[in-house]
């Protein structure tokens, strides 16, 4: 635990420049002060300054007031909430300027101001990161993601980056809403039809073969090195072969997924089954328990963390396998099909909408498995709070 506070812990009376000056506030204040000298927008080639008749000073004053008010808050966390409100208020400035028909590129005053808001957001996150509980585990990553999205939106719209290169998050959201029926059909074809079936088949095949290999050690000793070799083979490469064999519909996608998910599940299950301790097994034998009972009551519960590890790895692999296989041939629906056709038609916002759906699906699958793992393996040491 060597961090900034260790100095103060050893010598509370030590005063130096580092502790006497609030460098964070300087990092926020200096760029904004410097930015006051620059224009914040331009109106058909004419630069517009901070005090040229727009409501811009209103947002600047609100931001500064929030920082000052936060300094007087009785608790740092309360102050952080006030600062957060100030940041959110300050982020309205570019929207206000664009509503007034102004162009934002080349306006260094505005960009320095927005940089200052980002530094303040970082300070807020630093405060929240010190509070255990949901503020630390949910709010801080949420604010980080929000900050990234806002920066993306501001930069893309401010510098009017063409949508063909990178659409703004707001445009992607609009595309999701407008194309909801199409995206739902793709989701149903790719995820509900191909991925779920292939995932269940591949994972249960790996699991069953692992149980079999556990009974027949000869099989395990022969399969494990082959499994390690298989992890080096680029399994997505078999997609064209599977499409040739099983046709364009979900069967070929499920086949790719089965091949991709089989070995991770096999290896993890075998590792999990070997996880029970000698003394536990001896105890089971002293109870007169047979192979089946030992498996059901002792070894499978002990293997659960490994099983979930395999299931989690496979959840992303399955999605990848299905979408890649759709590049090699598909009925005219599905995420892979949508991405490849809409790229060709230069509808990049629809493509990004599909990517967003895929990312949400992947995170959702992973998250659901993580919750299930937490519920079923609450006893495991890795689940203890840190």
């Amino acid at each position, binding site marked *: 635990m*060597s*961090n900034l506070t260790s100095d103060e812990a050893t010598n509370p009376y030590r005063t130096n420049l580092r502790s006497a000056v609030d460098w964070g506030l300087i990092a926020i204040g200096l760029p904004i002060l410097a930015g006051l000298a620059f224009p914040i927008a331009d109106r058909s080639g004419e630069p517009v300054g901070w005090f040229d008749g727009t409501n811009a000073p209103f947002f600047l004053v609100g931001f500064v007031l929030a920082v000052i008010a936060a300094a007087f808050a009785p608790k740092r966390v309360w102050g952080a909430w006030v600062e957060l409100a100030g940041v959110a208020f300050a982020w309205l400035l570019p929207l206000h300027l664009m509503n007034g028909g102004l162009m934002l590129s080349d306006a260094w005053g505005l960009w320095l101001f927005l940089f200052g808001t980002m530094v303040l957001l*970082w300070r807020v*996150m*630093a405060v929240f*990161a*010190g509070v255990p509980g949901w503020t*630390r*585990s949910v709010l*801080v*990553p949420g*604010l*980080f*993601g929000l900050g990234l999205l806002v920066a993306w939106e501001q930069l893309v719209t401010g510098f009017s980056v063409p949508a*063909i*290169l990178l659409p703004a998050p707001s445009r992607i959201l609009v595309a999701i809403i407008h194309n909801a029926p199409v995206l739902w059909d793709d989701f149903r074809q790719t995820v509900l039809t191909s991925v779920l079936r292939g995932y269940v088949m591949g994972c249960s095949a790996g699991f069953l073969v692992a149980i079999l290999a556990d009974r027949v050690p*000869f*099989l395990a*000793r*022969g*399969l494990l*090195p*082959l499994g390690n*070799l298989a*992890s*080096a*083979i*680029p*399994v*997505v*490469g*078999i997609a*064209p*072969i599977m*499409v*040739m*064999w099983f046709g364009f519909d979900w069967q070929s996608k499920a086949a790719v997924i089965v091949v991709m998910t089989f070995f991770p599940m096999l290896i993890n299950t075998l590792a999990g089954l070997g996880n029970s301790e000698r003394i536990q097994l001896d105890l089971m034998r002293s109870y007169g328990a047979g192979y089946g009972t030992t498996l059901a009551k002792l070894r499978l519960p002990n293997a659960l963390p490994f099983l979930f590890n395999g299931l989690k790895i496979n*959840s*992303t692999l399955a*999605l*990848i396998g*299905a*979408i*890649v296989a759709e*590049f*090699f041939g598909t009925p005219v629906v599905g*995420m*892979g099909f949508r*991405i*490849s056709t809409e*790229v060709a038609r230069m509808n*990049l916002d629809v*493509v990004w909408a599909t*990517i967003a759906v*895929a*990312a949400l699906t*992947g*995170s959702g*699958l*992973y998250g659901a498995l993580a919750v299930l793992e937490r519920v079923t393996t609450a006893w495991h040491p890795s689940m203890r709070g840190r």
Partner: protein
Amino acid sequence: MTRRALPVTVMTLLLLAAWYVGAAWLNWPQAVETLMRASKPTGVADVLAQAYAMKRPILPTPDQVVVELWNSLTGYAPTSPRNLLFHAWVTAEAALTGLAMGLVLGILLAAGIVYTRTLEASLLPWVIASQTVPILAIAPMIVVILGNIGLTGLLPKAVICMYLCFFPITVGMVKGLRSADPLWLDLMRTYSAGGLRAFWSLRLPASMPFLFASLKVSVAISVVGAIVGELPTGGQAGLGARLLSGSYYGQTVQIWAALIMASLLSVALIAVVRGLELVLLGRAGAR
């Protein structure tokens, strides 16, 4: 040694046998049709011979694939686009560039996460979430988009590889940088050594075993990334392009040869990493 060699040999032989049976079964209808059209005898032996010797089989036999591999490796100069070594090199180049970029990104992120509590709380969840984005599936699109702004060739593929392989490196390095013995860290402090000094002399060496474990995973992943990144460039160089052109023209033997070459490439690169590990860690006195 025999305890492991025998089962592996038996399983490999079983796999090969299953492959031959599968090839006969899948190619059977086509073989019968060919023989009928040529009005040749259609006894079991004749059909079997035909099924194992087809030019565009549904499933080629292992010997056909090996012959194709051998011919393409020895029949042409290594710089010729008809030689698989040339394509493997194109893929390896992208994979290794991406791996190097991923290594830099992964170590920087890990150092940031280990040293900054705010970064640990805010960035680490997103690093994990980033891997649930099926980037491999979106890779062809990234290549097309980067191609639109004039970035073609090696770089887009390397970016995909970087995205795929930074994750194991970050996770491994976070663990590795934290694995330095607290007693030693305290000793460094009594020597009044700064944070940077402790990083170079203690944390970085302590993380090396973790780094190499991650690198072995990353190298295999980055080969996959490079191959998928080659898919949309259609018909140009690289093992992925071979896969795609084989799929276009129904050249199944070519697909299988490219696939085997790709896994050989992964295995070779992993072996290189393992060799580096032995040399470096051996020199550091780890084993």
